[in-house]
């Protein structure tokens, strides 16, 4: 029987990072997962935490309330959304007064938050719920003789205290998944470096410097590609790769993939269904 889970796509994935959405929607069903769409979602509020944190909590609680109504757990593949939802759950659990207040705001739309669902990111969902062995079973064309650098994204691993998909200092789930589909994942010193993504909003030049520095380091170390699991990070490394590299006065031609795209490739899913034509980095270099 199919495992049912609600999909919370968030803004970035559903308004521009379509390659992530396509590869999530087309890869998970191969693993026996049925993704359920829910109407009425809004932004998770995370990008607005600097403006008004109460607004972030309200928006996340609102989305969680919509999912609770369907009695489903949720998959939030964007690291930012995932953190916002998890942190809101954490805050409201510890602060019943705030929960009451948020529920008062939510009553305008006839919603009620109880905090009673499990929130997954693609990383922990694949690793903990599906499992490495199950993923291995579906691999038709392994990624042989290729080595990838992994980029988890800050929001995916920190703060540990509120519960994150992987360890904050030594995350390994993405490595294990990539190894299972045939790729090598040698470690590199810059693995935990930030993509700079959030600074796009007010200090774009610095954002590009951050992503540029990381791209430069990864390509200098001879990797065949970079793998990420967050649409904000991916935008910096893929769509904005040329600009990032220029900002640190270098040239980079590094294929950048979403983890779900690489998994889908090894499952034999066709390129269009994985949105590979939407990656602006040199993904055509990787042929399996």
């Amino acid at each position: 029987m199919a495992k049912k889970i609600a999909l919370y796509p968030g803004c970035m994935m559903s308004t521009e990072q379509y390659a992530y959405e396509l590869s999530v929607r087309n890869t998970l069903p191969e693993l026996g997962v049925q993704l359920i769409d829910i109407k009425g979602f809004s932004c998770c509020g995370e990008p607005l935490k600097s403006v008004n944190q109460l607004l972030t909590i309200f928006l996340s609680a609102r989305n969680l309330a919509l999912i609770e109504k369907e009695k489903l757990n949720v998959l939030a593949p964007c690291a930012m959304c995932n953190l916002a939802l998890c942190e809101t759950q954490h805050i409201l659990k510890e602060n019943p007064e705030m929960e009451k207040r948020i529920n008062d705001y939510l009553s305008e739309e006839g919603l009620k938050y109880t905090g009673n669902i499990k929130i997954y990111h693609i990383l922990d969902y694949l690793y903990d719920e599906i499992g490495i062995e199950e993923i291995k079973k579906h691999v038709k064309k392994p990624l042989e003789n290729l080595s990838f650098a992994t980029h988890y994204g800050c929001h995916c691993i920190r703060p540990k205290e509120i519960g994150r998909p992987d360890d904050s200092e030594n995350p390994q789930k993405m490595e294990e998944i990539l190894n299972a589909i045939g790729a090598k994942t040698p470690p590199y010193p810059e693995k935990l470096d930030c993509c700079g993504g959030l600074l796009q909003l007010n200090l774009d030049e610095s954002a590009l410097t951050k992503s540029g520095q990381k791209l430069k380091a990864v390509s200098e170390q001879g990797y065949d590609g970079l793998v990420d699991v967050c649409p904000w990070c991916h935008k910096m490394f893929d769509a904005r790769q040329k600009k990032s590299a220029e900002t640190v006065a270098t040239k980079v031609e590094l294929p950048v993939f979403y983890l779900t795209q690489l998994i889908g490739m090894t499952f034999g899913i066709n390129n269009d269904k994985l949105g590979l034509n939407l990656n602006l980095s040199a993904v055509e270099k990787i042929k399996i």
Partner: protein
Amino acid sequence: MTITDLTSMGKPQTEQKQEINKRLQKLKDEVSEYCYQCAKCTSGCEAHKLLELEPHKIIALLKRGLIDEMVNSDIIWTCMSCFKCRERCPQKIAPVEVLFALKNMAVVSGKQVPGKYSTILQSVLGIGLIQDIQTVQTKDMKTLKREELKLPEISKPTDPAKFQAGIMKIAMEKI
């Protein structure tokens, strides 16, 4: 509703200001006892090398109550929210959370909301998402719309007026 309702100096914001002040006061009371300025936060700070953010100094200034000075400084907007300072502090202090509170205070005090923050705030208030559906370009310069990619209809607030009513309550509530 406009951005000014959430950010301006209007009366309801006085209440919000008081609440953020309480938040900062609470953080101040929590840190003053525990931070011993080891600067481990700064040594790992993503914005340190590039933009000279020094989280341990933010905590030192908070300890001394120099809140207005920080609220009025651009330095608080250099944080990338990587959460390394919160993760690595041996005393479980979270400079990143202090910075969020300071930025919230800057906004509610009627200082300009920097960069694209105002654009995405407007967008969320209007359509519920940080931006509307974008047309994307493939590497061979083909333009594609969301619906051409066989993706289902986007999920967004079905009744914007009711959605905004909830946010309005946040903006207007007396605390």
